[in-house]
């Protein structure tokens, strides 16, 4: 019955029946479970396929190449109703990515500031931070999205009476319009120069650290880095002909044309997610800093380190170990919560996929796509943070 059973046992050891051998039994159970799950999966998939076919509901992925014939409000890549479903879904995925990236970035900065403020010795600052954290954590994020969206379109005027707080910036219930530099080849050079600057900064820092280890002489890394990051793009701009033409938003007909528009939907999604998640991040940061014992600060001061060095060399490296894992889960939360954007009309991936499902009737493929995309986003965020965590982890000697 079982190959294990027929194995020739050596005469010296007493033969143990396989069902009494814990190791073999474990393997057997695992194999049985795997078979069970596999069979169940097969049963479900084959049933779904036959039944879909019998109801003559379309299956497969061929719909991806068909014309989407619906319009999407905002898109980072060229898109029109004549584009394919695949492109529409790509637009949605990019929109989700944009919200997740911008949202996480602002959340980390804001959360850190509030977390530190929570520990401030100033009574007022610390209490304001505490109230913020308590209030924001306790209001469901969907409500916050509705709130910010409503604030935007209920309080701001129509485009014809748009507010103009600063030259070149317009505020109305259609969004915030910014003046941006007109498209020019020099901007591409500037981007490349920035990348180059980042690489150079990385190299300089590496070299400076090595030199300090060797000779003990510090190098003004920060100032040099800043100069390169600002200087390289400026140089590229100057060499590229120093274009100064600006793309100013102008009222034409109903709406503003030109410039860069930040839609109320995008604003509300980012605002809601950031303010909500930052409260959690603040608590994470506070806990991290408090986890480093006071003696560490005192010891560092006593060997003559300056306060900034105490923070950078002693406190933060230790606090980071505590901060990073829960911070990762907050970042994942924000990314996943961005799917709530569909409720206020931001064309994120879920919104576009929903429409696709509805127009094509292929719910199973659509939902599978949604799950895959969020899984990929989450796994890559988590992989990055794990890598960072490993770097920040205490190196034991």
């Amino acid at each position, binding site marked *: 019955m079982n190959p294990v059973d027929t194995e020739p046992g050596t005469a010296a050891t007493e033969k143990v029946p396989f069902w009494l051998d814990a190791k073999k039994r474990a393997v057997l159970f695992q194999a049985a479970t795997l078979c069970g799950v596999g069979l169940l999966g097969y049963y479900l998939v084959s049933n779904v396929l036959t039944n879909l076919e019998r109801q*003559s509901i379309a299956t497969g992925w061929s719909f991806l190449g068909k014309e989407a014939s*619906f319009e999407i409000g905002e898109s980072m890549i060229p898109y029109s109703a004549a584009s394919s479903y695949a492109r529409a879904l790509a637009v949605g995925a990019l929109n989700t990515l944009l919200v997740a990236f911008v949202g996480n970035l602002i959340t980390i900065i804001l959360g850190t500031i509030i977390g530190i403020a929570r520990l401030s010795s100033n009574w007022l600052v610390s209490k304001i931070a505490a109230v913020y954290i308590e209030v924001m954590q306790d209001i469901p994020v969907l409500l916050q999205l509705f709130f910010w969206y409503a604030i935007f379109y209920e309080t701001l005027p129509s485009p014809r009476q748009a507010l103009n707080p600063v030259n070149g910036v317009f505020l109305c219930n259609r969004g915030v319009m910014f003046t941006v530099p007109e498209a020019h080849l020099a901007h591409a050079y500037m981007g490349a120069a920035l990348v180059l600057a980042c690489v150079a900064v990385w190299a300089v820092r590496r070299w400076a650290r090595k030199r300090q280890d060797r000779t003990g002489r510090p190098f003004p890394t920060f100032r040099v880095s800043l100069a390169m990051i600002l200087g390289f793009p400026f140089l590229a701009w100057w060499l590229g002909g120093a274009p100064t033409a600006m793309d100013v938003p102008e009222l034409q*007909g109903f709406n503003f044309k030109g410039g860069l528009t930040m839609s109320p939907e995008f604003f509300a999604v980012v605002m809601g997610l950031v303010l909500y998640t930052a409260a959690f991040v603040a608590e994470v940061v506070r806990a991290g800093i408090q986890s480093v014992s006071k003696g560490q600060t005192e010891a560092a001061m006593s060997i003559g380190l300056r306060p900034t060095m105490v923070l950078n060399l002693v406190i933060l490296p230790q606090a980071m170990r505590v901060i990073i894992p829960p911070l990762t889960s907050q970042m994942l939360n924000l990314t996943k919560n961005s799917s709530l954007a569909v409720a206020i009309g931001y064309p994120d991936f879920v*919104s576009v996929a*929903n429409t696709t499902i509805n127009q094509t009737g292929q719910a199973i493929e659509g939902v599978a796509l949604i799950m895959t995309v969020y899984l990929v986003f989450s796994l890559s965020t988590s992989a990055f943070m794990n890598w960072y965590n490993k770097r920040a982890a205490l190196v034991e000697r």
Partner: protein
Amino acid sequence: MKILKLCLVLAASVLFIATGAAMAGETLDAVKARGFLKAGVNGDVYGFSMPDEKGVWKGLDVDTARAVAAAVFGDPSKVEFTALTAVQRLPALQSKEIDVLCRNTTQTLTRETTNGLNFCQVNYYDGQGFLVRKKLGVKSAKDLDGAAVCVLPGTTTEMNAADFFRANKLSWKPVVIEQASELNKAFFAGRCDALTSDASQLAAHRSVAPNPDDYVLLPEIISKEPLAPVVRHGDDQWYDIVNWVTMSLIEAEELGITSRNVDKMLESDNPKIKRLLGVTEGMGKALGLKDDCFYNVIKMVGNYGEVFERNVGPDTKLGLQRGLNALWTEGGLMYASPFR
């Protein structure tokens, strides 16, 4: 939350689709065994399907579902209504959460084929229009270049609007919100320049707006929207029942039978009336129902004209004219096939 909902729909579809092979008669048996009909409706459109202040469902689509319940049970109250968004409605029907979808749904080729659905007799002929603020000074939909337009996702409306702006080489920005109430709030607060939907729905939304008189419907009707009750593929008997019950409303109006005179009509000599009301046996039984099923429908719900007047007609808040929805004998499109 959205994802969770979708996953539930997926799980439900997998489970339901996996377990049940639809047979003719299966839906009717299930409905009878359950004791009530499950109907999917909109829930946000005054005059078509919306609960009134007492929580009682009212509307043209609601009455269509009630007519089916009256035919099956002899009791129009035996319906459980589920409010569905445009995106949820088709999966809800496909996964057997509901027996019939009476939710101002447009009949299209794709929906009948790749979505695996059957559309019954049309209960409202509609067309897509645009609602704008009067003070915008727009006279035609072709002036809407560059406009922000509020539109429901997952509707034929969304695609018609895309077609219209493309065909006229106009630019536009869709603002797409799934919940109709949220979408309307955004429009009335000024987020969009125009709201586009079926003309009847626009009238309905305007009727519940803060200042209905500030808004005007543009003259263009950019599409054909035959709205009809929908059932799943695979159960022909159930399709026949919903189809012919809907037609019986129209046939009754054509024959002059109303909820008030239906008892007197039982004595009529007109063979058409006799067949419809079950005095001459055979029609109801052929559908797998009782012969008095259409009598019950007319007695308890009324004929199409009554349903129309009660919910959306000139005396209601909507004040819609019969137009395309008049009987064919009066220049409209409402035409029931012979009950014989």
